[in-house]
């Protein structure tokens, strides 16, 4: 038998605080061999990867970053459940060496939770050394009885040592360190644990502690007759502890954790940090987060990312468009000219045009994620959130929601993907759902057609401004509404760490950028491909003319007779109150595929080339009043996010429920706003 057949990979989990450098450590461990997905049902990223050491495979999962093993955020719940249920062979606890007094608390919780063999990884050892901190690592190893290694994750230093330590600990597993927190607490935990015979022996102490703490998740899960006695005992012990200590049990337990860490650190510290390693970082903050200059600088950074995404990105976008056009022409030329082949039409007009329409955004997405990765990896993102939180919080959002919403002015798709930088599910969902209201770049092509058609030159700028402003106001109002209704609940804490500025490494930035872009291509791509084919079908069938398509007139007739045309006509009664008719309705179906398609569809219906904006505008002016024109703009702004947006919302929210709520909610709102505007403006004039 070969080795590969006999060996199953050793399962390793990385646990640690956010900002502890866990992800760069993960990247350094696994190199390119990783897979990024989502934990089922939540918007928490799940990364796994592989590495091989001396013929043995190791499967590493990067748990979500958490400050502690409480159960308040989805990240904490996911990490905790993973550790309790997944039976990892080794758990590496990654801590930031510069904040040991806080970050070692997670290690204490790990000792208590006992998810398997532990390895302590003191990351950012270089920064700690620069601050003058010196630890007796041998003593630390002896006291904790687990391997302890120092690493500098982003430079890949100490990775070999970490790999060796992980391998060693699977071979020779040392005695578990006996955790004593305080006589009173240990006794209380033991008393509750006695009634937890139904729980895995290793996890009893942890579950007992959670019951003492009245952790809502555990209390709810264990609210069965089987655990009645445990719950009662926990209640009794809690009352006793609180009476004896004179403080509530959450505080008492946390103080005991900190007491353990402080005691440990006092023993192993040879030299305490005495130089301020943050001097430079604090100096930078004095300028970048200045009360006066902070905001201008932030807007400059946002503008920079915008410029990078949409101006620099335009060039490769053009190449990709040209590439797909070339591909389409070449495939089309496989058929004899003039032949009406459904297959050719499906390939060229359906698949290539549809997928091309998605892939064309790839450069934007790559560049945007490059910008965001830089902002995140340097530590500026936390500062941006600090600066913007006051404004965003008024609308039930988080300071960090601002960045995705700004990105949404370029394109909703990367904007929605940028919501990944939000820690909390409700913030993330609220931001995601209202994001299509930020008038995107594709809609700008529509405004460029419609505004000159309906408004005198003097009013054009105001009309454009009004559209953007309406979008922003509605987005914020809707976010507030969502947070008050469907996404109600306690505000996520803004208690946020502000790590020192760090120089991002090319490797970390590119990994982050490529992973997210690949997710976009793969997942959004498959859904969009399916919708593209449907869109193609309903605009091409049934065939009304067997004659080859030669001019605008036949194209218009074909579209009018197609399923889309019929749907457009069916919408006619609904559009009348807005001062519109079926022609717009048919074009709106195109806008669902991609907003800019609206212009092209309208061109086909009016049987003019879509590049002939001037004629088209005249036709529009003839058919619709300016009020109806503005109602149409409002409808296009608010209603029906494009299918790429829906697909990516589905992907990022993890369920169709939210995507459909977005579609239904925004379409209803768009219709109502357009209707109210049109009807009121008729009364007013």
């Amino acid at each position: 038998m070969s080795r590969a057949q006999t060996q199953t990979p050793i399962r390793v989990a990385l646990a640690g605080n956010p900002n502890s450098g866990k992800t760069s450590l993960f990247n350094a461990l696994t190199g390119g061999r990783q897979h990024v997905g989502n934990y089922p049902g939540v918007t928490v990223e799940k990364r796994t990867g592989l590495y091989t050491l001396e013929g043995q495979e190791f499967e590493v999962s990067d748990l979500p970053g958490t400050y502690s093993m409480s159960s308040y955020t989805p990240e904490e719940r996911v990490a905790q459940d993973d550790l309790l249920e997944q039976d990892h062979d080794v758990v590496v606890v990654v801590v930031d060496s510069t904040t040991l007094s806080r970050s070692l608390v997670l290690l204490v919780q790990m000792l208590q939770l006992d998810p398997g063999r532990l390895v302590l990884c003191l990351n950012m050892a270089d920064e700690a050394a620069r601050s003058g901190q010196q630890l007796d690592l041998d003593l630390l190893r002896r006291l904790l009885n687990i391997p302890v290694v120092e690493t500098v994750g982003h430079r890949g230093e100490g990775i070999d040592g970490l790999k060796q330590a992980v391998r060693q600990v699977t071979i020779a597993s040392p005695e578990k360190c006996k955790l004593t927190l305080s006589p009173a607490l240990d006794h209380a935990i033991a008393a509750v644990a006695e009634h937890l015979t139904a729980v895995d022996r290793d996890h009893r102490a942890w579950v007992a502690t959670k019951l003492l703490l009245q952790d809502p998740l555990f209390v709810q899960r264990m609210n069965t007759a089987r655990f009645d006695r445990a719950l009662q005992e926990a209640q009794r012990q809690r009352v006793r502890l609180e009476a004896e200590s004179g403080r509530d049990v959450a505080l008492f337990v946390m103080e005991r954790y900190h007491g353990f860490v402080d005691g440990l650190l006092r023993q192993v510290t040879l030299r305490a940090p005495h130089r301020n390693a943050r001097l430079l970082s604090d100096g930078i903050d004095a300028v970048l987060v200045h009360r006066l200059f902070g905001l201008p600088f932030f807007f400059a950074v946002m503008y920079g990312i915008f410029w990078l995404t949409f101006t620099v990105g335009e060039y490769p976008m053009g190449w990709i468009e040209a590439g797909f056009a070339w591909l389409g022409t070449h495939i089309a030329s496989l058929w004899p000219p003039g032949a009406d082949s459904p297959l050719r039409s499906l390939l060229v007009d359906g698949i290539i045009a549809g997928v091309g329409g998605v892939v064309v955004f790839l450069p934007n997405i790559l560049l945007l994620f490059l910008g965001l990765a830089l902002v995140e990896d340097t530590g500026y993102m936390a500062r941006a959130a600090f600066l913007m939180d006051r404004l965003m919080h008024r609308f039930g959002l988080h300071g960090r929601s601002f960045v995705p919403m700004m990105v949404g002015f370029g394109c909703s798709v990367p904007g929605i993907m940028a919501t990944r930088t939000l820690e909390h599910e409700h913030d993330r969902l609220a931001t995601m759902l209202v994001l299509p209201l930020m008038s995107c770049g594709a809609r700008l092509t529509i405004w460029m057609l419609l505004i000159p058609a309906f408004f005198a030159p003097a009013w054009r700028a105001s009309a454009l401004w009004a559209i953007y402003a309406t979008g922003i106001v509605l987005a914020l109002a809707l976010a507030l509404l969502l947070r008050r209704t469907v996404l109600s609940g306690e505000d996520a804490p803004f208690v946020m760490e502000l790590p020192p500025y760090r120089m991002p490494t090319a490797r970390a930035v590119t990994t982050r950028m490529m992973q997210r872009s690949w997710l976009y291509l793969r997942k959004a791509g498959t859904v969009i491909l399916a919708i593209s084919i449907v869109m193609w079908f309903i605009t091409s069938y049934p065939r009304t003319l067997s004659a080859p398509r030669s001019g605008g007139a036949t194209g218009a007739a074909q579209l009018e007779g197609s399923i889309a045309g019929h749907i457009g006509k069916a919408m006619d009664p609904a559009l009348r109150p807005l001062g519109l008719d079926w022609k717009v309705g048919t074009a709106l179906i195109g806008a669902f595929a991609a907003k800019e398609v609206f212009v092209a569809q309208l061109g086909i219906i009016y049987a003019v080339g879509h590049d002939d904006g001037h004629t088209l505008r005249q036709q529009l002016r003839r058919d619709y009043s300016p009020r109806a024109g503005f109602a149409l703009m409002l409808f296009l702004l608010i209603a029906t996010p494009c299918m790429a947006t829906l697909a990516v919302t589905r992907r990022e929210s993890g369920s169709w429920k939210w995507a459909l709520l977005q579609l239904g909610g925004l379409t209803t709102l768009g219709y109502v706003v357009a209707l109210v505007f049109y009807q009121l403006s008729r009364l007013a004039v």
Partner: protein
Amino acid sequence: MPDTTAEIAISAALEDYLETIYGLVRDNKLARVKDIARARGVRSGSVTPAMKRLSELGLIRYVQREYIDLTANGEQLARRVFARHQLLTRFFEEILGMENETAEGDACAMEHSLSPSGMDRLARLFEFLRVCPEGSELLQKFHRCSVVHQKHTTNESCTCANRSALCHLHGQPNIAVADLAAGQRGQVTHINGSGAVRQRMLDMGILPDVIVEVERRAPAGDPIWIKLQGFQLSLRKKEAAAVLVTPV
């Protein structure tokens, strides 16, 4: 029973005068009004009415104009007041480990208001702690115990976590972190609030006795940016309002 003076209830201010006169008489045989005024830190004019009242009570007598001596009753009462003062000062200094100046001040404030039986019990406790072997051992333990020290990190030999009495005592000068000015530091006494926000603050190391410093505020004044234990956090004003500190 010669102890009739114990029946005479005189005001705290008069007790203080009597004590001052006792000290002056002991050192200089006689007390001058000018010296009394200087020792009490008041003007001579305000001393005279008090002297008149003391002399009416038969506790002092004028030897000459301006020169005052204690009567036998006066001396007895003065000695008792003085002894109480001494005991309290020593108690604060030797048992509670306070600085001499604060101990003196507190003794002055307390000596008049303690009931004779309260004073008696305190004296017995003092004797027990100073003289009995078990007592002095206990006293040593008490001084080593972390409870006495401000930081819970200074000593681990004591496992008593009960600092409720201290917490309540320190409850007086508390202000919220949100109310500290930029650059101001405070020592955490309470973390109010509940649920995820409170848990997150505890997780982040915002615990009693930890020193926090407000570094800056966001342009609109909210959120605020704080430093503690070598790292930096931001919290909303509303969240920071739940953390009470004593400015240091």
